[in-house]
């Protein structure tokens, strides 16, 4: 077992999110939130305004006419995308770090996070149910727990986890829970709570590998975004990988299982372009 008290301490020691980003995430979770209020919160934060305008004018978002005001950015991108961009901007320094314990080079976690955000952006066209706004942020931050977990995993822990997977055929998540008493989803949830992100974002992060236990559609969507992100990365590198996705989740979200393949193809096609927007903030 890992030292849970120290893990919790480390999660709570992460640099806080800017107040304007937290406020935006909370506003986006409110079904009554209006675009004028969102624009007002952004406008009060000059650094955020500049970043979001850069994002809104990136190749993925720009039209012939450049976006010059926050109001235009909000109406062009929509609240959910803007909030995801603001969150991306706040979390990027951390998400770009290398995490050797998980085999992640510098920038690898960031790319995977952006791929999940791109998947989340693509999902509304394929899902039979509305994608809640919290999904965009949860998708982007779903693996944030690896940042802390990666610092604590000793070579012995990694060996025990590998053996639990090999000998008892456990998933990475189950193996972490058995050996460490906590898994990276739970740790990510703690970090999101520390950042004051809305409860459904926290739920989506905690249950991104075991969505049925989360009893919230946000968990299903975050799970799907993670799985599609893996396909995006595999597709870019060497063709589509094996898609071992829960049929329970696809039945809950998609109008037909065949849509999954189309979703992956379109998300893969959009990845390069949309990631420019995230890389611009």
């Amino acid at each position: 077992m890992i030292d849970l008290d120290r893990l919790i301490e480390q999660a709570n020691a992460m640099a806080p999110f800017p107040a304007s980003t937290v406020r935006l995430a909370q506003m986006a979770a409110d079904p009554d939130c209006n675009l004028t209020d969102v624009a007002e919160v952004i406008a009060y934060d000059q650094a955020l305004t500049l970043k979001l305008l850069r994002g809104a004018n990136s190749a993925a978002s720009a039209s012939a006419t450049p976006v010059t005001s926050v109001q235009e950015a909000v109406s062009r991108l929509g609240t959910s995308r803007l909030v995801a961009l603001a969150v991306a901007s706040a979390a990027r320094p951390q998400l770009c770090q290398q995490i050797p314990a998980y085999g992640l080079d510098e920038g690898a976690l960031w790319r995977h996070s952006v791929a999940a955000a791109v998947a989340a952006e693509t999902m509304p066209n394929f899902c039979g149910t509305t994608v809640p706004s919290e999904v965009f942020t949860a998708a982007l931050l779903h693996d944030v727990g690896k940042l802390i977990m990666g610092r604590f995993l000793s070579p012995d822990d990694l060996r025990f986890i590998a053996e639990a997977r090999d000998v008892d055929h456990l998933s990475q998540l189950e193996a972490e829970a058995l050996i460490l008493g906590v898994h990276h989803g739970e740790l990510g949830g703690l970090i999101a709570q520390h950042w004051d992100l809305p409860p459904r974002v926290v739920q989506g992060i905690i249950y991104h590998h075991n969505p049925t236990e989360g009893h919230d559609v946000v968990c299903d969507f975050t799970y799907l975004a993670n799985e599609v992100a893996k396909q995006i990365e595999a597709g870019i590198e060497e063709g589509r990988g094996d898609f071992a996705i829960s049929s329970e989740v696809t039945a809950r979200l998609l109008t037909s299982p065949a849509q999954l393949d189309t979703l992956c193809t379109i998300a893969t096609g959009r990845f390069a372009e949309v990631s420019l927007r995230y890389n611009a903030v």
Partner: protein
Amino acid sequence: MNTADFDFVRKYIREAAAIVLEPGKEYLVESRLQTLAREEKIATVDELVAKMRLNPQGDLARKVVDAMTTNETSFFRDLHPFEALKKTLLPELLKRRAGDRQLSFWCGAASTGQETFSVLMTIAEHFPELLGWNLSYLATDLCSKALARCTNGRFSQLEVNRGLPAQLMVKYFTRQGAEWEFRPELRKRVDFREMNLVRDWHRMPPLDIVFLRNVLIYFDVETKKAILAKVRKVLRPGGYLLLGGAETTFNLDDAFERVVLEKTTCYRVKNES
């Protein structure tokens, strides 16, 4: 971990707690004992096992059993058994026991208390009248350290994130520094006791609902049979046994019958209504 040490530990655990550790589980034993060695300021697992061999009845050996029997738990684990409790079992027992206004519960693998407190919250939320009955709640576990945490009723943020709905957290827990404390007036209704399921069941009252979830999986067939036979003896007529999702009485004790309630299965003694 070397084979001789692994064989010694697994034989010891089998005798002390009837838990079966098959070959291949060396990684699990080593990982748990490594944590214990760190806590006890013992340099290596080899050294820890050597100390244990010198004094097999000592405190360290006891801690080894605790380390090997502590397992995952969460609030409202699997959710469906609690739905069954709310929708079927408690309404049925409420009618059946209306005469003597007496209900008794037992959680046989209480661990750090999440299952017990989930049952209490279900009662308080949906059947508050039961709190005025003669309600007895027994929660037992083999691990004294886990039981101490039950009595204390405090949970970290990580633990309350596991399955506890936010509205129940706010209603039944109060923040104490970095921890969350379960309401003392409900906690005090529980009789927490140390108990080894494979030893004698002293002072076990007649029971209406028995939670024995995710514990039989660790035992061999004979031990499972012996435990189920003992459960049968303490269940009151019309009482229910709840097991884990991967557990059953089938082929172990045919005196039980399955009662399927939506997405969960309960067991009761046959020929009873």
